[in-house]
């Protein structure tokens, strides 16, 4: 090994180390900021080292492609709104999957050009210089399969969250068709591994793998998308690890596997927080099976004026604000925080309570509140805040619906039955800011809105929060 190669290998080692340390730092709010920088340095080191690899051709073309890709992604990532983060993660993840599939494709096509045949000792012989081993071809095929699925699936997830694809495509026998497509891709993959490295076979293999990703994602509803994106994130990690083995690149193997394992666990945690199993997300349809008769809800929704609501909270001792995605859509988080600051100035103890799946993704709401400048120590998790609701004078629910629905505890027929909720109804008074009388994301009536201690403040989140601020300010003078 020449000295250059040693330096390059050392760079890859450093990159892998920085990735792991960076990810570790990202798992605590205090060090998270630095974590991404560490990982970024690792990436830079690895990319620069790759340029220096001795047997590389087309360096100019590579540089051009890198610059275009970086510029486009940097530009789009900078200007996208925080509410659109989940779909951007899906988009970039899809790109990673696509890149892994592309690596697999170049490898397989280059083998195909060399009339490869399988010999007894599990070793391919080729007329060219490279002689891929059985394990290499197998992993190239596996990585290509998983990467392709992640690519097309993530793009569909992106389109759905972006609102370009509202419909869920469901037809009878869909599951069977999907399974046949997957089986077809698997059979072709096995044939490729078996030594039939012909170009048409490889093309059809990729077409089937991409089609499966599409068809698997199309019937999944928007509410389940975060779990799916997380799953594809893990998929891409695995695909990267497999292709890393094919290319004999240790940094890819380690980074890919770490992400694969971390992503799988993250997917499970998310699914658990949403009270869904992964199998249920992938193969069941939310709200499709209307089971037993839904519990009838008695009482009526009682409206309240903004001025009364402001007074109620101004003279309260403890106020808990429960934000939901509705608040984020209305871009009301800045107004809400302004309102909360006014309350704090008056000596009211204010906390924000966040349900694990508030927003579109676990933790998404924390990001949105952080954007508005809410310090994270005022933000409480569900488990911490639930015992405090009985001592809370006013709970202000803004744009949240299903995550505060008491039916999740009382009505076994409800589709959200069993989902852990924020126990808002236990507060002395509840004020719900809501645009109209409609149902939430999951299309379920909310018993909270009919409760005796609940008052409805109708209006757009932004406007309602603005009114509350004005009313509160008028109290000061």
């Amino acid at each position, binding site marked *: 090994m020449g000295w250059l190669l040693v330096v390059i290998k050392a760079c890859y080692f450093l990159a892998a180390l920085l990735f792991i340390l960076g990810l570790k730092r990202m798992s605590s709010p205090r060090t998270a900021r630095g974590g991404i920088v560490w990982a970024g340095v690792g990436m830079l080191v690895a990319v620069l080292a790759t340029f220096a690899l001795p047997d590389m051709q*087309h*360096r100019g073309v590579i540089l051009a492609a890198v610059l275009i890709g970086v510029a486009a992604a940097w530009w789009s*990532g900078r200007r996208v709104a925080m509410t659109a983060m989940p779909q951007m993660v899906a988009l*970039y993840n899809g790109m*990673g999957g696509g890149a892994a599939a592309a690596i697999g494709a170049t490898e397989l096509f280059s083998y195909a050009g060399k009339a490869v045949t399988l010999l007894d000792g599990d070793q391919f012989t080729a007329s060219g210089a490279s002689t891929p081993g059985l394990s290499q071809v197998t992993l190239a095929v596996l990585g290509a399969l998983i990467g392709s699925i992640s690519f097309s699936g993530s793009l569909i997830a992106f389109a759905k969250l972006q609102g370009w694809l509202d419909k869920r495509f469901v037809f009878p026998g869909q599951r069977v068709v999907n399974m046949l497509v997957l089986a077809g891709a698997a059979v072709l993959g096995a044939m490729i591994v078996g030594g039939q490295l012909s170009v048409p076979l490889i093309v059809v293999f990729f077409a089937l793998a991409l089609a499966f990703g599409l068809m698997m994602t199309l019937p999944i509803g928007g509410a389940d998308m975060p779990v799916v994106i997380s799953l594809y994130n893990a998929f891409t990690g695995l695909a990267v690890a497999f292709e890393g083995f094919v290319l004999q690149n*240790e940094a890819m*193997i380690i980074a890919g596997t770490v*992400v694969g394992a971390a992503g799988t666990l993250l997917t499970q945690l998310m699914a658990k927080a949403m009270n869904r199993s992964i199998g249920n997300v992938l193969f069941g349809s939310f709200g499709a099976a209307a089971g037993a008769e839904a519990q009838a809800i008695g009482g009526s929704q009682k409206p309240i004026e903004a001025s009364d609501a402001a007074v109620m909270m101004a003279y309260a001792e403890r106020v808990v604000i429960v934000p939901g995605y509705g608040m984020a859509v209305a871009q009301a988080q800045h107004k809400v925080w302004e309102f909360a600051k006014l309350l704090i100035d008056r000596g009211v103890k204010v906390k924000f309570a966040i349900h*694990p799946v508030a927003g579109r993704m676990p933790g998404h709401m924390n990001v949105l509140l952080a954007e508005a400048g809410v310090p994270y120590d005022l933000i409480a998790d569900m488990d911490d805040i639930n015992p405090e609701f009985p001592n809370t004078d006013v709970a202000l629910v803004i744009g949240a619906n299903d995550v505060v629905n008491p039916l999740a505890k009382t009505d076994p027929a409800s589709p959200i039955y069993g989902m852990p909720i924020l126990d808002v109804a236990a507060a002395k008074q509840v004020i719900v800011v809501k645009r109209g009388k409609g149902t939430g994301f999951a299309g379920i009536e909310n018993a909270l809105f009919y409760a005796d201690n609940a008052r409805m403040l109708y209006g757009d989140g932004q406007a309602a929060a603005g009114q509350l601020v004005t009313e509160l300010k008028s109290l000061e003078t």
Partner: protein
Amino acid sequence: MIDGFLALYIFMLAAFTGYEIIARVPVILHTPLMSGSNFIHGIVLVGAMIALGHAQTTFEMVIGFIGVLLGAGNAAGGYVVTERMLEMFKSSKPAVSKEAK
């Protein structure tokens, strides 16, 4: 050259590492962490560069070029988005309290 079993050991150890890192993460960091791990598999860019660097035919070059384009997008986009998210995590009592919420 990494042989089969050595690769298996690397797989196993890296998988445990990934699992352990995530195991005790507060919910508030799930989204940034997903985004962060999304950035880390942007290392696929390196592989795509190697693939393009060894391309023999025009067809392979086209696929390799697309691969590098996508990989670069994954890495750069993943970084920007994660960085923007994490930038916003601030405490109301800066640098006074040592504990992470």
